[in-house]
């Protein structure tokens, strides 16, 4: 196969074409043009075909036209990027190729590129952008909550801000570690040259920007009142902003399914010779477990949102009790996705921190098998707990003891991860680099998140805290305190390898301490607010709670400021200072750090042969992870080309 694979690497023409000529072609520019054009065309078509249709009369917004607009826009976007070129070319009898646009130069970041390292960088920048937008929404929400009465935003604006913040965060954070870091490093860590399905890999990324933009378009379409959970039948009654939520979240469901399938196929089939299951970096195990959840849960999300879309456009009544449907159907379907989703957010974080701890403790990962068992246990159990979100709904009340038990049992495998972490630190030689600081903070934060989860899983306690700010504090401790801290650990750990540039250490430490302190100041008091009776998703609260809320808002603004420090550091370090980073700045044994910086397009000169596990720090006589220079051997779990 390898002769076909690289035939596209033809020598460049000698004379460069004029600059404007290079802008024409299948790239971001064409995609934007076709995407915007597609919206207007789709909306026009939708309006034409719904003339006189009952379901769209009596409302000021035409949902069918809105959905058609989105559909055409995304199609135009993908065509503009060139996603049809390959399938059409094959139909016309052109020869197959495995990879596209794997060249040097900045242009490859703005088009369909099948180099997994380019996709990783594309993901990183995109997710960061949307994360900042969603974070800004959080600041707007906290500004309103400075006073116990509605002041800054009206009811619709406030609810839309909450929904936008929550949905945007969950959409983007679902792939926050898999998108940038798994795409970039999983093939390298397993000794492969690419992902199993490079073109699908690119597709999974290019679905993300339209999803984010479509979700933002909800602002122009009247907002949506349901928060990130999109509960029907409220969703059935909402204005056209709801369609944006449905379409955007469904696109992310699609993207997640593709990411999961691709990661699984890659790790299952493309490991280098000698990369046995017990030598697999623990981060890759985290990715495997996350991918299993994505493949099994994300399609349920897609189906659920499609059913709401049908209720809204085709007058079906899946969720309308008055017409034979059931609101319980929605909540069950949603949380059947929703609970695995929270582990889609948590598991990559487990992988990252356990990957980082051995490097900076200079010790083997303590209890490797236990860590793998913990992740697999979480994966399995996470499909058996979803009704803990429905303890007081009146649904299956007699099953509550079962769901209480499964939910509490999930803290056993989660506890393994803590034992692994603490065991790895114990008697190590700990160096407090910035990635290490974030990884250690992860444990403190996730511990609080997990212990508060035990309150919520206990039905009598949940009766008083369900739907309150206690829940809100709980999931921010797990998602922000867990995933986002792990995300920054990964960023400081791997970005120097990806960019070849060092971060400014002082700014990074300011970022860490600001974020750690103000994160706790922001969310710890909210446990109290919740226990004292403050419900989620309200801008009107008891004036006796104003003190707590003001403290929280001010902390939240300072937390936002610490993010600004990160942004400044990122721009300063990569644009202005540009201090080159060594190829292995952390003296890590990880395979990815044995490669030169920048990592060559084809990763490895020859297929590496894995000789030992990645965490054998201090083990006398442990060979290096891989023999990189040796000729490839035939057979084994080879990853040719």
């Amino acid at each position, binding site marked *: 196969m390898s002769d076909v694979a690289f035939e596209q690497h033809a020598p460049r023409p000698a004379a460069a074409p004029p600059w404007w000529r290079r802008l024409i072609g299948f790239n971001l520019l064409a995609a934007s043009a076709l995407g915007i054009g597609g919206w207007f065309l789709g909306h026009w078509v939708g309006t034409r075909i719904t003339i006189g249709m009952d379901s769209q009369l009596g409302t000021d917004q035409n949902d069918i036209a809105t959905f058609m607009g989105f559909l055409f826009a995304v199609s135009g976007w993908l065509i503009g990027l060139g996603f049809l070129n390959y399938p059409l070319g094959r139909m016309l009898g052109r020869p197959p190729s495995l990879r596209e646009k794997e060249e040097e130069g900045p242009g490859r970041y703005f088009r369909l590129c099948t180099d997994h390292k380019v996709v990783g960088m594309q993901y990183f920048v995109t997710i960061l952008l949307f994360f900042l937008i969603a974070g800004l929404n959080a600041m707007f929400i906290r500004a309103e909550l400075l006073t116990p009465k509605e002041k800054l935003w009206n009811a619709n604006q406030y609810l839309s801000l909450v929904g936008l913040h929550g949905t945007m965060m969950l959409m983007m954070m679902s792939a926050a570690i898999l998108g940038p870091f798994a795409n970039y490093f999983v093939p390298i860590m397993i000794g492969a040259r690419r992902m199993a399905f490079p073109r699908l890999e690119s597709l999974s990324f290019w679905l993300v920007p339209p999803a984010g933009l479509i979700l933002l378009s909800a602002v122009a379409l009247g907002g949506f009142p349901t928060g990130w959970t999109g509960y029907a039948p409220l969703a059935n009654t*909402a204005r056209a902003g709801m369609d944006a939520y449905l379409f955007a979240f469904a696109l992310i469901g699609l993207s997640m399914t593709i990411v999961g399938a691709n990661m699984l196929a890659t790790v299952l089939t493309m490991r280098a010779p000698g990369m046995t299951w017990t030598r697999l970096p623990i981060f890759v195990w985290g990715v495997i477990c996350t991918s299993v959840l994505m493949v099994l849960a994300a399609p349920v999300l897609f189906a659920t949102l499609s059913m709401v879309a049908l209720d809204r456009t085709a007058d079906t009544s899946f969720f309308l009790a008055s017409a034979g449907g059931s609101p319980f159907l929605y909540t069950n379907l949603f949380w059947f996705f929703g609970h695995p989703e929270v582990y889609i957010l948590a598991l990559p974080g487990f992988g990252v921190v356990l990957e980082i701890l051995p490097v900076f403790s200079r010790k083997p990962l303590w209890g490797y098998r236990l860590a793998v068992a913990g992740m697999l246990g979480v994966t399995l159990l996470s499909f058996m707990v979803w009704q803990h979100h429905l*303890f007081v709904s009146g649904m299956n009340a007699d099953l509550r003891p079962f769901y209480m038990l499964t939910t509490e049992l999930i803290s056993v495998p989660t506890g393994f991860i803590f034992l692994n972490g*603490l065991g790895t630190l*114990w008697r190590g030689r700990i160096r407090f680099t910035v990635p290490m600081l974030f990884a250690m903070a992860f444990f403190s934060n996730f*511990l609080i998140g997990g212990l508060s989860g035990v309150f919520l899983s206990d039905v009598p306690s949940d009766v008083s805290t369900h739907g309150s700010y206690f829940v809100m504090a709980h999931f921010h401790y797990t998602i922000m305190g867990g995933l986002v801290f792990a995300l920054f650990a990964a960023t400081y750990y791997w970005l120097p390898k990806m960019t070849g540039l060092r971060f400014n250490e002082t700014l990074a430490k300011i970022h860490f301490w600001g974020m750690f302190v103000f994160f706790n100041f922001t969310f710890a008091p909210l446990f109290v607010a919740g226990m004292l009776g403050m*419900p989620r998703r309200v801008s009107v609260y008891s004036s006796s709670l104003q003190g707590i809320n003001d403290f929280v808002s001010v902390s939240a603004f300072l937390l936002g400021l610490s993010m600004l420090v990160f942004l400044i550091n990122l721009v300063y370090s990569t644009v202005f200072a540009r201090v080159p980073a060594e190829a292995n700045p952390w003296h890590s044994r990880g395979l990815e750090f044995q490669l030169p910086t920048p990592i060559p397009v084809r990763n490895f000169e020859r297929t590496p042969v894995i000789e030992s596990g990645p965490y054998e720090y201090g083990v006398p006589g442990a060979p290096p992870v891989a023999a990189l220079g040796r000729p490839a051997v035939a057979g084994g779990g080879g990853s040719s080309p």
Partner: protein
Amino acid sequence: MTSNLAPAAAPSGEPHIRRLIVIWVVLSAIGVALVVFALGPHMPPWTFSDEARDQRNINIMLAALATPVLLAVWMALVYSIVAFRQRGVAIVDGTPIHGGGRLEVAWIVVTTLIVVSLAVAGTAALFGTTKGAGGGQGPDPLAVPHGSLPPLQVQVIGQQWAWTFRYPAFGGVETTQIAIPAGRVIALHVTSLDVNHSFWAIRLGVKADAIPGSDNVAFVRPRRPGSFRIRCAELCGLWHGHMFTTGLVLTPAAFSSWIRRQVVANAAATRTLPPYSTHYFPEPLRRAG
């Protein structure tokens, strides 16, 4: 690599562990005592009803259990940070331990025992004296209170964006305020006319989702007269945040006269109401204009 670079006082496990355990036991004892005796009496959702008191007791129990766990992990973290910190630029390897079979097994056994006993305690509370601990249990709950008096049935109806209440034992009269007698078990039948809501009276220890087409029963026995705040706890649209009101717990005598006044005052309205039912289907939902 380690041998020649390691400083003289190479850390060995035993004294560390003994020292840690002693500190942990002392701190945990102080922490648990503080949680139970200082925080406990103020722990929400207080003791206004039997259900609230049950929830409060569980909260105290969970907080008391969480304290030693929190302390154990924090202390192990902080201790490692202090004792095993490597200063300077030299890269020195730690002790290459790959795991500890006995510790792993002990950890699994202990954590499993803790969470299973928690689940047992929670289940016992569900089927214990308060029958459902104040949560919504659906149309025909397994756990039903038995007392000398049958539960007083009160229907709670949620709609965008207000609560109303019907008393089937008093001709199905519908009121805009809820009043219930103290010392008697009340069966709240919660339902909705449009979208999902959730009836939450924190002092009363009750939370039950109001779902269209469903009858969600929660039992509560208020212990003394007083008032309680009701808030909607499920996002139900624009004015969700304004869907709050105040309810009353009255002495049995005061309740009798209150309900009699309601029946008289609302007599005309009651005749126009649909007959009492576990749920109602008004006009189908429409898209907001």
